[in-house]
């Protein structure tokens, strides 16, 4: 059975005009998202994850933002040229967003219930406010908020952080969107609450067949929730594949770096956390050649001259590194990372049995 393609981003480029110059925040990002699937976008701070997700919502402030190129096909329709008015029918309705910080994402002076019914009423012209209220209470119940009737009338400050994030999710689900964009939805929460929120999102996805773009810099979370992973670096996707591709067969040195910098609690081996040396490049003057070259211990001479293309590794797996060129020297995955991967494999096998 072929899954339906819900979102197709082609060569998206987003710039910001600043006093210092033009920041090329997103430099040609492409990916596909299928119905009912989760795509995780990972990458370090400033790699353009949030800009990419805001771009899909068309929430990039213009100015200073500029859609410099590319298309965003949602359900087959390019949304880049849509007007504000047309876009307001898409936002909240077909694409909804979950924000990082639940402490600030809710309006402090509006009752929680109203913040939910607002979306329902906006996108369903025929619904009466009594029906909207009923639906909102059902939603609160769905996202696991006890005593929804009472909670409906409360203000955000009467909720804990985890409960607020549930409210944010309820708002996002209010108009039954096809695509949920979650920009680091659990980063601001403590670990146990994180796990609950992730469970909730998976649960909802199963019930409603929603597609999710899940943004995070925590690879540990990715393995849990995602079907596919896009690794972003300096405004580009450098490796793209299924979770298995990325975790068991990572090909890009930056992905190795990310995997290596993830604390490995399971294998319990005494090893140092590897960090990726250096810092991301200046996006006003992106370097010639590969943006990662300066931080890459495996960099080749060509890396400083010419940007690598996306090499296809398999039907689902792509990486943007010269190391995949047939003429490139064979560089094996560093030992520490290889050990990690071994660990994951064993773990997977054990839990599989």
């Amino acid at each position, binding site marked *: 059975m072929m899954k339906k393609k819900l979102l197709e981003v082609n060569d998206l480029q987003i710039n910001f005009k600043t006093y210092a110059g033009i920041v090329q925040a997103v430099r040609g990002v492409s990916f596909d998202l299928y119905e009912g699937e989760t795509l995780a976008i990972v990458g370090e701070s400033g790699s353009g994850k949030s800009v990419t997700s805001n771009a899909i*919502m068309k*929430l990039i402030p213009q100015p200073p933002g500029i859609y410099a190129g590319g298309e965003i096909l949602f359900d087959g329709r390019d949304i880049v040229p849509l007007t*504000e*008015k047309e876009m*307001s*029918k*898409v*936002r*909240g*309705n077909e694409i*909804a*967003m979950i*924000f990082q*910080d639940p402490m*600030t*994402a*809710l*309006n*402090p*002076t*509006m009752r929680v219930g109203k913040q939910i019914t*607002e*979306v329902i009423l*906006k*996108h369903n012209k025929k619904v009466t406010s009594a029906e909207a209220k009923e639906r909102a209470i059902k939603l609160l119940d769905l996202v696991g908020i006890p005593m929804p009737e009472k909670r409906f009338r409360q*203000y955000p*400050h009467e909720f804990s952080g985890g409960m607020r994030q549930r409210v*944010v999710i309820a*708002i996002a689900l209010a*108009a039954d969107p096809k695509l949920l964009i979650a920009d680091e939805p659990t980063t601001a929460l403590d670990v146990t609450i994180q796990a609950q929120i992730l469970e909730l999102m998976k649960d909802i996805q199963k019930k409603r067949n929603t597609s999710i773009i899940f943004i995070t810099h925590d690879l540990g979370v990715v393995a849990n929730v995602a079907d596919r992973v896009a690794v972003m670096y300096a405004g580009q996707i450098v490796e793209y594949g299924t979770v298995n591709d990325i975790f068991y067969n990572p090909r890009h040195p930056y992905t190795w770096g990310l995997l290596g910098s993830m604390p490995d609690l399971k294998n319990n081996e005494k090893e140092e956390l590897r960090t990726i040396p250096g810092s991301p490049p200046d996006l006003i003057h992106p370097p010639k050649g590969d943006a990662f070259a300066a931080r890459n211990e495996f960099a080749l001479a060509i890396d400083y001259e010419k940007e690598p293309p996306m090499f296809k590794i398999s039907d689902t797996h792509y990486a943007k590194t010269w190391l995949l060129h047939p003429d490139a020297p064979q560089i094996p995955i560093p030992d520490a990372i290889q050990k990690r991967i071994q660990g994951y494999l064993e773990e997977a096998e054990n839990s599989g049995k």
Partner: protein
Amino acid sequence: MLKYIFKRLVYILIALYIIVTATFFLIQLAPGSPFASERDFPPQIEAQLNAKYGLDNPWYVQYKDYLIDTVTFDFGESMKYKGRSTNDIIAESFPISLTLGIEAMLISVGLGILLGVIAALYHNRFPDYLSSTIAVLGISVPSFILAGLMQYFLAFKLDLFPVSGWKGFSYSILPATAIAITHAGFIAKLTRSSMLEQSSSDYVKMARAKGLGKWTTVFKHTLRNALLPVVTYLGPLTAGVVTGSFIIEQIFAIPGLGKHFVTSITNRDYTVIMGTTVFYSIILLFAVLIVDILYSVIDPRIKLKGAKK
């Protein structure tokens, strides 16, 4: 809530007591007497007058008398205008000042918020520069100068408004504007910066992500939160409007309470000074109380101390 209000009322009483006492001693310290401006009386007459009003008593007896006057809210006859009680003067002139004051407050709040919102919505574009300039001018030009300018150009030269007096609504526009403009400037700046702060906040972005239109977002989400600081300014605004009226009522020859207050001081009309001071104090203290209660109504996060649900 009731407990909170009760507590605040006690504070108001304490504050009033301090104000009355301070006023009393300031009057005692100030040179001159109510009868000084009239032609030289023979000393006997002055002594008689002093005796009649109790001014020959030692200060603690006078102080006690004033406290009793204040508690009973009966300040006695004006020492200057024979036959008119202080209470009459207040009753007669206060409605005028109240009208003027309310008008001034409406203008400052309305104009201020309007300018502030426009400036924020068109951040760093022409309307922003224009309204910010108006706001800065409003803040920096003193009200009496503005009053003079408006009287000269709008009333005298262009004849759009009456120059002075108090015979109807058209007489109130210039003085109310003169009182309001400084505060409108402040409110505009306050609204602008608070609007800008709110519009970059997450929940506003969230409102946009919900698919709400630009204006719905502004009115339903940004504005209400942005106006919270403006509500806190209502207390000082009331005080400002009251003090503003002292000068402006003089300039426009408006027979309001502010004018009486000022002349009573220059006349050393002790009873009227005391009466108006107490009256003004009560109004201001209650204005602050009302603002605090209002604030807790608008912002659900604020619980009045000592208030239980």
